[in-house]
């Protein structure tokens, strides 16, 4: 399924996990279970030694995964094995893409059923080669906007992104937080075009997920809280959380924001 098709059934729940954590073998089954529990899109992180946009939870997951043997070749094998009927998205740092070559990387994505790429340290200005490669192989290149992204730049990023626009809920790095900020709501409402909007960074509860949907987002992205449960081996709790999150956002659909 293409990302744009998935967004025909919004709101969506996008779940991030770090591929290879705790082991590469565990990842395909984990992906299937998350989809069964209600995940509409899976963001599969490729661990990097120097994840500058990530907080302690995902940093630790990356280190575990690398120690368990995860690398880019294994990543694409694992991604291909995770045969689910929802879109899978690559998330990872640009040096990993650069090292393989943007063209080969995008092709490998396409071959292993990965429909989009999120590269958090690659702003549109530097994305030329990867953009071309993604277009060539029909992979969406998803850009991020942040609460401090000024209006003209936000407009430029909206035009450059494909699949959806990743709205960073807060400045700083990834990691579970307990609130939804006014600046997040403002950012959602500042997006002018009709590109689908997904909000991530810091969402850890069903209430927060519902809150961003009520504020106008088309999808909620959860990461660190899931990675944390995987680290603790609490997979059933993870499935339950995904079910609760999904129910919360579906329930929030079309409702007006409580606070605004």
């Amino acid at each position: 399924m293409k990302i744009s098709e998935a967004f025909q059934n919004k709101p969506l729940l996008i779940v991030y996990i770090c591929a290879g954590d705790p082991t590469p073998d565990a990842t395909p089954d984990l992906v299937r279970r998350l989809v069964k529990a209600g995940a509409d899109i899976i963001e599969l992180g490729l661990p990097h030694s120097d994840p500058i946009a990530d907080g302690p939870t995902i940093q630790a997951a990356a280190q575990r995964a690398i120690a368990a043997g995860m690398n880019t070749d294994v990543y694409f094998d694992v991604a291909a094995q995770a045969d689910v009927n929802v879109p899978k998205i690559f998330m990872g740092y640009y040096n990993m893409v650069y090292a393989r070559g943007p063209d080969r990387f995008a092709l490998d994505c396409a071959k292993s059923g990965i429909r989009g790429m999120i590269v958090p340290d690659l702003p549109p200005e530097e994305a030329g080669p990867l953009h071309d490669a993604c277009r060539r192989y029909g992979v969406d290149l998803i850009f991020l906007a942040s609460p401090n992204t000024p209006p003209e730049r936000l407009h430029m990023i909206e035009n450059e992104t494909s699949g959806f626009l990743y709205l960073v809920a807060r400045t700083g790095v990834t990691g579970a937080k307990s609130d939804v900020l006014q600046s997040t709501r403002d950012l959602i409402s500042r997006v002018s075009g009709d590109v689908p909007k997904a909000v991530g960074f810091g969402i850890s509860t069903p209430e927060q997920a519902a809150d961003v949907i009520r504020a106008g987002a088309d999808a909620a992205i959860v990461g660190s809280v899931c990675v944390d449960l995987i680290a603790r081996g609490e997979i059933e709790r993870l499935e339950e959380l995904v079910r609760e999150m999904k129910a919360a956002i579906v329930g929030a659909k079309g409702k007006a924001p409580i606070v605004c």
Partner: protein
Amino acid sequence: MKCDTANAAAVKFGKYGGLFVPETLVQPIMELAQAYERLRSSDDFKDELAGLLRNFAGRKTPLYHARNLSRELGCKTYLKREDLVHGGAHKLNNTLGQALVAKRMGKTRLIAETGAGQHGVATAIVGANLGFETQVYMGEVDIERQKMNVYRMELMGAEVIPVRSGSRTLKDAINEAMRDWAASFEHTHYLLGTAAGAHPYPTMVRDFQSVIGLEAREQILEAEGCLPDSIVACVGGGSNAMGIFAPFLTDDVRLLAVEAGGRGPGKTDRTADNGASLGYGSNGILHGALTKILQDPYGQILESYSVAAGLDYPGVGPELAYLAETGRVQPKMADDRTAIRGFRALSKLEGIIPALESAHAVGYALSEPRALGEMAIINISGRGDKDLATVMDYENL
């Protein structure tokens, strides 16, 4: 000051450099770049910086004709004495410049990374002197190796924050500072310590360090009436090297950039035995720039190694990567043993104990004297007091 640049154009050096940072950092970086662009041509700013460099940092530093070393090398050799800058290294040239930029941008807090502790100390100095709250990220491993510098920073009111992520050394301290800045940019300036990283740091740090080369050029012309055949500088990220090289780029002067050869060319899955990104590295992205880095075939960054903590970095500034590619700068190497030889030789011959980093430049000169020509300048980027324990340990092994 706000700017809404739809496009964040970064200065590049050939294909090297750029702005490979999370979107949250694009705006703070563009604001910094604009502030710096405005201030670099402001007389008022330049006067304030020049005053501090003169009266506080102790510039200008001597260009010293080292007669005994010259005899040993068979080359008339001058030493640019950055070891005499307040704080004991060239690092203060940059921290003073950036702190003044930060002040004029209305920032109240400085954050910095440090490896050996020299840049952390230089940041603590300006933090105390110019009235900033100062926090310095330092890898746990480096805190253990450089206890004296940790204490120096704390004495001057800076807080040293231990970094426990990754390899717990300099590169992880930079990662942690970038993460902090992504949440704190409204009141905080990230004071990067070398001519590496995302735009505009490579340009800005080079400019603030160019005082080394500008002085040296004037001094050598006064002493000799001509330019030297060669200039030798050690390279960690490249700030002392670019600082002394920059004013000579269009001259017929050989520019020799000496990297840390460490224990040799070896590497494992996760580590390299050296810090020689120009010598052994390949193109890749680290800390916001495309440059030469030490990495595995998949793009994971390797942990570097050098006996000199200040050269223990798996990347290098993008301008040096470019100048090495065009051939304008010649990358060279000195391994641990050669550096220790340089350390001992300069101490004994001239009564000057160089930093282990600078000792790489001296050691290289001693091992390849013919590369220097008839007249050379060696940049003594810092003094060696901080390294006495390290050298004692090394010799006992």
